[in-house]
């Protein structure tokens, strides 16, 4: 959980959602895959509807990522050595909005 003494660094993406009040969060999360396998270590960035950078995390070893956004349209873009991929999502509040990004 973020607090005033913490910085803005992206946390480990493998953790669960315990301690987070999902009712007040708009979670955009999912998996990055390449060649049918999880792309652990991929750089995953959340872009707003105008394409502006909003946040970036490094996918867990299982290729998982998670953002705490707000309701609306988002694009998620992933980068790994030599490949990239992206997916769009319209996120709703109070739930986990799941997407899959395929690198190629």
């Amino acid at each position, binding site marked *: *959980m*973020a607090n*005033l*003494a*913490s*910085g*803005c*660094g*992206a*946390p*480990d993406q493998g953790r669960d959602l315990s301690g*987070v*009040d999902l009712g*007040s*969060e708009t979670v*955009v999360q999912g998996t990055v895959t390449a060649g049918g396998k999880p792309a652990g*270590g991929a*750089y995953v*960035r*959340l872009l*707003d509807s*105008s394409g*502006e*950078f*909003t*946040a*970036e*995390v*490094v996918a867990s070893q299982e290729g998982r990522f*998670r*953002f*705490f*956004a*707000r309701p609306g349209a988002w694009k998620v873009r992933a*980068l*790994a*050595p030599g490949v990239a991929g992206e997916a769009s999502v319209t996120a709703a509040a109070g739930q986990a909005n799941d997407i899959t990004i395929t690198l190629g």
Partner: protein
Amino acid sequence: MSRSEVLVDTEWAAAHLEAPGVVFVEVDEDTTAYEKGHIRGAVRIDWKTELQDPVRRDYVDKAGFERLLSGKGVSNDDTVVLYGGNNNWFAAYAYWYFKVYGHSNVKLLDGGRKKWELESRELVSDTGPRPKTNYQAKEPRTDIRAFRDEVVAAIGKDNLIDVRSPDEYAGRLLAPAHLPQEQAQRAGHVPTAKNIPWSKAANEDGTFKSDDELRTLYGDAGVDLRRDTIAYCRIGERSAHTWFALHELLGLGNVKNYDGSWTEYGSLVGVPIEREA
């Protein structure tokens, strides 16, 4: 100041891993990435536990900085090359901090850990400690650090640059979108601050944009670069990235980083705040 004096590319770094007098330092808030793999020979600095005072809210004092660098094996005459994850935010903060304490030769690795990884360059997991040194810091500089009263005094007068994402600036989010949004401070931004997200100064691979692109970015946003400038974000590391772009790359001497940033300003009693409806 020329770009090559403050910024090195991954190719230069790869060619100087064994160079005498060059020390690579990985800086991040979460240093578990370092344990899994880091640039060969690099030592690590933990932003949270080693650069921040453990009790009061401030960075560590001069004696603490001297102890830290002595323990890490950094000498006063070493060339320190900083890099990290999170698009070099914490490395840029550390760069600013090395400058506050007067280290003469410090550089940032352009693109940081991301560029290094995207180029599939070597990472190792077994770097031993460097021999201890007797590091001597200078008295902290105040010309590159802004405090809250200066921020309030700059409203409507000098340049204030809010480098957070548009949603944080507008008050729709209270923290970067990879963090839960439950926060103590009020949402919004300092009145008259312009929103120029740090990310606009960087390319997708984490490298800084060219000097011309940076001048155009800030100029088009209406920032008069001849005036004094204060950059802020939520806690001071993203604004250290923008401070680096303005003060170090563009060579503007009158730019300060407000490391108290929104977690301080948004908690102050009685100061003006603007927020989009």
